[in-house]
């Protein structure tokens, strides 16, 4: 008698557990229905100031390191445009000096914000260049993959953005970015990074760093436009990305990248 009862209770228990678990699973998978009212509210309030087809683009960024003169205008412009905190950078410039003995001297004084003072290095510098760095807005983003609350996401145009109202400030995305382009903003305690000046590109303008570059070392464009110079460069010239072996598929392409680049 005892044996039969035990089997029955076990079966009943398992059935209940399965039903409960299935119920819970179903509930969590149903997304909350969105009202669609929201976008009209914002438009009518006059806050919407975008180019009419602002979603119909697919952006890419090109850096031509053979043209960069290391003036630092991009770093200053980015700080002014986006109110970046003092000790962190959304974009920065690194200087490489390689001597004939194979030594590589890299520096980025204040991220290149005040240009570069002369730096004496032992030996003759036989190869030197400047390397502007920026968030690569990858396609296979390691940062959006690890954000626990979906605060970091990819917009339909390919820009990777951070929702500061949802971010909990755990710092997982900062650890996950292999290019060190993210930081925790000490004023808002959330993650922050380059947004390709999303507020400018959606109005048909260029990012601030591209706008102020005097030598056209930084380029930005829409891959969906046939005559875009960025598209032409990516399609026809020898371009490279940073850390390709990590398979993050960056959308910031470099011309003239050297093997010494970090």
């Amino acid at each position, binding site marked *: 008698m005892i044996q039969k009862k035990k089997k029955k209770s076990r079966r009943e228990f398992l059935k209940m557990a399965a039903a409960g678990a299935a119920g*819970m699973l179903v509930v969590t998978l*149903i997304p909350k229905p969105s009202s669609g009212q929201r976008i009209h509210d914002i438009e009518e309030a006059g806050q919407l100031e975008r180019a009419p087809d602002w979603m119909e683009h697919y952006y890419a960024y090109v850096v031509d390191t053979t043209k960069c003169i290391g003036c630092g205008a991009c770093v200053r412009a980015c700080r002014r445009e986006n109110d970046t905190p003092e000790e962190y950078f959304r974009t920065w410039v690194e200087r490489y000096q390689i001597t004939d003995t194979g030594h590589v001297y890299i520096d980025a004084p204040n991220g290149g914000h005040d240009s570069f003072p002369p730096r004496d290095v032992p030996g003759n*510098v036989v190869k030197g260049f400047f390397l502007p760095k920026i968030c690569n807005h990858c396609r296979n983003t390691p940062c959006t993959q690890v954000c626990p609350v*979906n605060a970091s996401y990819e917009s339909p145009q390919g820009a990777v953005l951070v929702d500061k109202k949802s971010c909990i400030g755990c710092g997982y995305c900062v650890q996950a970015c292999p290019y060190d382009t993210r930081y925790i903003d000490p004023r808002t305690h959330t993650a922050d990074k380059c947004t390709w000046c999303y507020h400018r590109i959606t109005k048909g303008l260029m990012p601030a760093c591209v706008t102020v570059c*005097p030598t056209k070392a930084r380029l930005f464009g829409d891959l969906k436009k046939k005559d875009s110079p960025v598209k032409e460069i990516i399609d026809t010239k020898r371009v490279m990305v940073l850390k390709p072996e990590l398979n993050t598929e960056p959308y910031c392409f470099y011309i003239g990248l050297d093997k010494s680049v970090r």
Partner: protein
Amino acid sequence: MKNYSHVITVFSVVAVALLGMQIALTTLQSDSFGKYGRFRGDHILEASSLPTKHKGDDNCLECHENEWDMADAKHAAVPCENCHFLPKAHAVPAADGGEPKEGLAKYARTEKMPIDSSGEPCKRCHLFLPSRPAGFPQVKNVEKHIKDGWKKTMGELDVKSACPRCHNSHFPKAFAKVSI
């Protein structure tokens, strides 16, 4: 059933509590979550609605066409905002309520745009650094540069001069300083 009733009771209570918690948490989700993708859809609107600060050269040229005409091809590539910074409260529409005026008269000047004439902004691009591209005009030895320039212009020699002493920042090929 008597021996198992406590099992059923406690598991039911737990299941209801967990289910209830998940439902309650899902209702706290933002309205716009999932609209454009798995993120808070309102943010993409907020991010694109931030005010732009850099206004671009066209904004300055509305009034300052003279400066543009004078700039030689090379320095035309340097945006106004690089050296003169953001157009904050530089010019506001004239508040006298009279007839609409044309050109510069449209605006009342509130404050002068800043400019650093010490030569520091020039050095940021033109000081010689081995990492700079070879074809780019750079000055290796400032004293020698000034002495050579003096020979050309026969002006006053002052080896401590700043660059704008001889070069017009908008038209750097001119050696005689032209006032705006």
